[in-house]
């Protein structure tokens, strides 16, 4: 049973927000995961880095702005947020453009971290 087991869970976000629901529903998984006392990390790769791009204003598309939830992750003790350096560069972004503090990693380094996980959920 799950009692006492601690596994490494990685949540990989590779999709842009709003065009599809994956970013939002991924975040809902992460918030629930926080209650399970597992070893949780989040990765933002490829278009997933756009989820953290500051300044979402969703009034014009009449969709809920869920960006504040990323800032609440810290309250859930989810502090390991990794962002792919190459993805930021390709999009003309830097860590200063993001809405939360993150650790920027080379893609290869993310590949290494991925190898160490017990469970990888990718959205």
């Amino acid at each position, binding site marked *: 049973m799950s009692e006492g087991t601690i596994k490494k869970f990685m949540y990989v976000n590779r*999709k*842009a*927000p*709003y*065009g*599809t629901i994956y970013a939002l529903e991924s975040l809902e998984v992460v918030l629930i995961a926080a209650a399970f006392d597992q070893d949780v990390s989040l990765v933002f790769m*490829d*278009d997933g880095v*756009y989820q953290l*791009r*500051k*300044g*979402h*204003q*969703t*009034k*014009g*598309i009449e*969709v809920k*702005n869920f*960006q504040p939830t990323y800032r609440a992750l810290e309250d859930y003790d989810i502090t390991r947020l990794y962002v792919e350096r190459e993805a930021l*560069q*390709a*999009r*003309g972004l830097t860590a200063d453009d993001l809405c939360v503090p993150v650790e920027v990693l080379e893609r290869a380094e993310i590949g290494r971290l991925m190898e160490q996980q017990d469970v990888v959920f990718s959205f």
Partner: protein
Amino acid sequence: MLHIVNKSPFQSTTLDSCLATARPDGSILLIEDAVYAATRGSAAAARLEQALGKFKIYVLTPDLEARGIAGSVIDGVRLVDYAGFVDLVAEHKGCQSWL
């Protein structure tokens, strides 16, 4: 004719398909995740800047704002809201959505 593209240029080859097919003087409207193609300083910017010499390129403002990139639009790209989107469809004889 009006071409509508809704995919990120970093994830999908759809915008490239559209650009390679549309006739000179055609119009291209970027909506949903395709609005990222209209931002300055990205790896897709050069492609779009080149396309501006051949097509009229429009981008949907509410989709830019939702994604926090309304301040990063490439010069020469025209901004439209939903009313402007409707006008574009009405002004062009036909439209093609590159899904």
